[in-house]
């Protein structure tokens, strides 16, 4: 389709609701044509940020530039109304007007844009066709299934060809299977239209599968922005490490120990081999479940644990192991016959461990000091 697309620049954006800082001095550049996902737990400010871009909320400070237009600039009192920002939006609830047919829902925006009357039916038919919804123009929303309603909402978005798509958890109301199907549909849509897309979700799997870049948010601040793989492999902050990953990452409190035999991390009553040691006295180790292996016999550099629970999940199995106060979740892809309370040995690849500063929660690297 090749629609023009435009970048979005956000500077120093702040929005308060009473005493609560919903959006706290956010700086973000969204490249033209990218699919940026705002990811975070409830209340982190992602929806507020999206609504500020749309113009549905008026921020207290900051600047938003969409394409060439400064649509918001607090200092100079500029706030362009939503209808003039060249953005289209899909809501979680679809927000289809219940007293209008699918056709009328889609045509509404076209009429407002003063499209020639004869051209409107053609355009409506085209977007419905693109979404596989021919023949449903005259249905009312209550006559459509959830998935169909969502497609009408998307058709409504596409009809006016905005260069920016904003989506607020559009898949949350669908059942699990439909959700998975729609993810690839949306990716397809993004590819075909080329529009700059900002997408809000609390589902990290959705974020990782769909985004070109993910911005992880918490308490109104952006914790990290990057490609999905980057966010997953090298989370910069403890919060991001904990939030991303299903099941969640294993976190251990450890003291670095240096002996003649090598470098170790002292955890509780056992030691793990270390690739390098930081200068702090105490650090947090972060280990993904898939970076731990379970062995049935003792071997060098392994630690004995006890099986706490086994959760087979189709192609993989999650094993919860325990030793004293320390609990680990392990993901294994080959079949293991394990019994409750069975002793097993755990091996962790030292290079797969991410170290976090206990005080600041920042990722540490062995170039000396913390990673920014």
């Amino acid at each position, binding site marked *: 389709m090749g629609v023009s697309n435009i970048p979005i620049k956000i500077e120093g954006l702040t929005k*308060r609701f009473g005493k609560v800082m919903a959006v706290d001095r956010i700086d973000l550049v969204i490249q033209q044509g990218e699919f940026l996902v705002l990811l975070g737990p409830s209340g982190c400010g992602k929806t507020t940020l999206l609504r500020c871009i*749309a*113009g*549905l909320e*008026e921020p*207290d*400070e900051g600047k938003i530039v969409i394409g060439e237009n400064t649509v918001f600039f*607090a*200092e*100079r*009192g*500029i*706030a362009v*109304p*939503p*209808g*003039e920002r060249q*953005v*289209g*939006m899909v*809501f979680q*609830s*679809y*927000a*289809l*007007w*219940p*007293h209008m047919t699918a056709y009328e829902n889609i045509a*509404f*925006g076209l009429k*407002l*844009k003063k499209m020639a009357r004869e051209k409107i039916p053609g355009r409506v038919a085209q977007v419905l066709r693109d979404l596989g919804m021919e023949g449903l123009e005259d249905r009312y*929303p*209550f006559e459509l299934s959830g998935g169909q*309603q969502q497609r009408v909402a998307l058709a*409504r978005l596409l009809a*006016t060809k905005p260069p920016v798509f904003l989506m607020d958890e559009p898949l949350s109301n669908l059942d699990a299977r439909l959700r998975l199907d729609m993810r690839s549909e949306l990716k397809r849509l993004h590819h075909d239209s080329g529009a700059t897309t900002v997408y809000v979700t609390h589902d990290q799997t959705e974020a990782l599968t769909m985004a070109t870049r993910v911005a992880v948010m918490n308490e109104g601040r952006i914790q990290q922005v990057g490609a999905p793989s980057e966010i997953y492999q090298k989370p910069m902050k403890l919060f991001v490490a904990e939030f991303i990953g299903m099941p969640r990452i294993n976190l251990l409190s450890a003291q670095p120990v240096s002996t003649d035999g090598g470098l170790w991390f002292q955890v509780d009553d056992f030691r793990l081999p270390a690739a390098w040691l930081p200068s702090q006295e105490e650090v947090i180790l972060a280990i993904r479940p898939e970076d731990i292996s379970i062995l049935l016999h003792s071997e060098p550099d392994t630690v004995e644990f006890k099986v706490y629970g086994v959760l087979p999940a189709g192609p993989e199995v999650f094993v919860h192991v325990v030793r004293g106060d320390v609990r680990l979740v392990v993901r294994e892809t080959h079949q293991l016959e394990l019994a409750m309370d069975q002793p097993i040995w755990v091996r962790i690849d030292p290079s797969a461990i991410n170290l976090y500063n206990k005080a600041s929660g920042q990722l540490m690297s062995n170039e000396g000091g913390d990673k920014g």
Partner: protein
Amino acid sequence: MSLEIVSSGLRSGSAERWLNYLRRRAKSPEFIIALLLVVALSFLVLVPVFNLTSRTLSWTESDARISPDAVPGRFTLNHWQRLLFGRLFMRMLWEPLSHTLVTGGIAAGIALLLGSMLAWLVTRTNLPGRGWLRSVLYLPFIIPAFALAIAWETLFKSPLAGGRPGVFQSLFGVVPPTWLSYGPVPIIITMIVHFYPFAFILVSGALVAVDAQLEEGARLLGASNWMIIRKIIFPMITPALLSAFVLTFGRTVGTFAIPYFLGGPVRYDTLSTMIFRNLSMGLDVNGYILAIILILLTSLVLYLNSRLLGGSSRRFEIIGGKGFKTNITSLGQWRWPIFLLVGAFTLIAVVLPIGLLAYQSLMLVDGCWELDNLTLHYWLGRVDPDLAFGSPGLFRNAVVLGGAWNSIRLAVLGSFICAMLGVLIGYFVVRNSRSWISRFLDQVSFLPFLFPAIAFGAMYLSMFAVQRGPIPALYGTFTLLVLVSVIHRLPYSTRTGASAVAQIGQELEETAELQGASWLKRFYHIVLPLARSGVVSGMMLTFIGIMRELAAIILLYTPSTRVLMTVAYRFAEEDIPQLSNALILLVTVITILGQLVVWRLGQGRLARLQERKL
């Protein structure tokens, strides 16, 4: 409008930010309309109250003739002092006040008892016919209080009031005792009949809301029915019961027609009738002071109510048919006897008054209750100099027809304007509820709820009687009646409008906004169509309310602006009971028909709402 933006603009001292902000505001139709509403409500609600109060606190021209200190317009506490501490106190204030409290209190108490019992029977037992009984039992509330008062008078008329014998006297040949004909006893009884439906609705709502599972838990543990009522249900609905009492009391305190017709002949006055007397006699300031006291009393009552329910109580819920599953207690062998009792009660409370009115309207010679005395003259007859002082029958009577035309005009115009205002104000109250405009509109649109109808009339009389500065003299105009009717019903239409708008998800409007629709387009294409059915029901109720209103306009009407109810009132005063009864009957029938339409609409709307659910 965000105060934070304003204040941060001031802090950063950026003139440009401020200016651009104001410029945006000035161009936004949403803001302009909201501001206009604020101005309108200030003028129509706040200013009259202020005016009323200030009139009681300043010297009038007539005072200047009596007292040498009086400087017209200057501040004085003299009026209040005279009423509270002077010799007027007993007759003008204390007696009416105590009568108001006594009759209101007793009536509310018994109405509550009656209403609660009926509520329990209808919602929680297997009483036969309880489906339609619920509607029928509500009727005495719809019948104008005027009608009930007249019906009682018809039964127990006494020579004290002049005129011909009532039913009692005709049947038994003796004059009924005065305490039975007029005074506190008939007032209380009539009030009970008129207001028990109010308590009935409130208590029904509370009973229906009791979660069946709470009782089932107790039942599983072996509790008996009686124990469940005592220990579980009763404590749960006690706040609702107290609230029902307080709200019913609040209503009884403000009634006018009942104490006027049934207390007047024996000079038994309540605050509301005393207000009327003072204002009819030209003792305006006294009337205004009493009106303020009445308003304070009602406000106190409502304040008590909100304390009982812990806030937000003014959004008291009339039955919404929530459809919770409730446990049904079987009445066993008492089923049919109780049904007969309730049926008998319904006959007395509903059928009897209407029947009496109808019968009397057909009597050629008042006082003669024989069947051969019946005639349709008062309905359809032409002029007969011997009858009714020459007034023709209802449907040929120019005065009546003029009144009917005025009533219809008033009700249609008033209900339409009220509904539009209600949905607009409701819109601003619901959307952007944090702004000062929204809170102002919310509070001020509710204020008229505190003013009993007669006090309303007094207020508007005080404000518009003569030209004062930019305020025109509207006394005697149809416009004034429309204004009063609209503002009087504004609390209800605002609540209806707000709830209709609240059903419309904000996102539905936001999507339109994103598509580029202006506020006006959004309101017209999205909000109004979706709010329509809720607003229409509200409009019907307002229509009915205006049709049967007497107290609010009794001080404000003139021969050219008379409406059906005031015509009926005049016929009653002139002692033409047949005509006044016929007219009251007509209004009652219209009112009941209107209510039936509302109920039908409500069912239709529910069905359509289910359809529309996403």
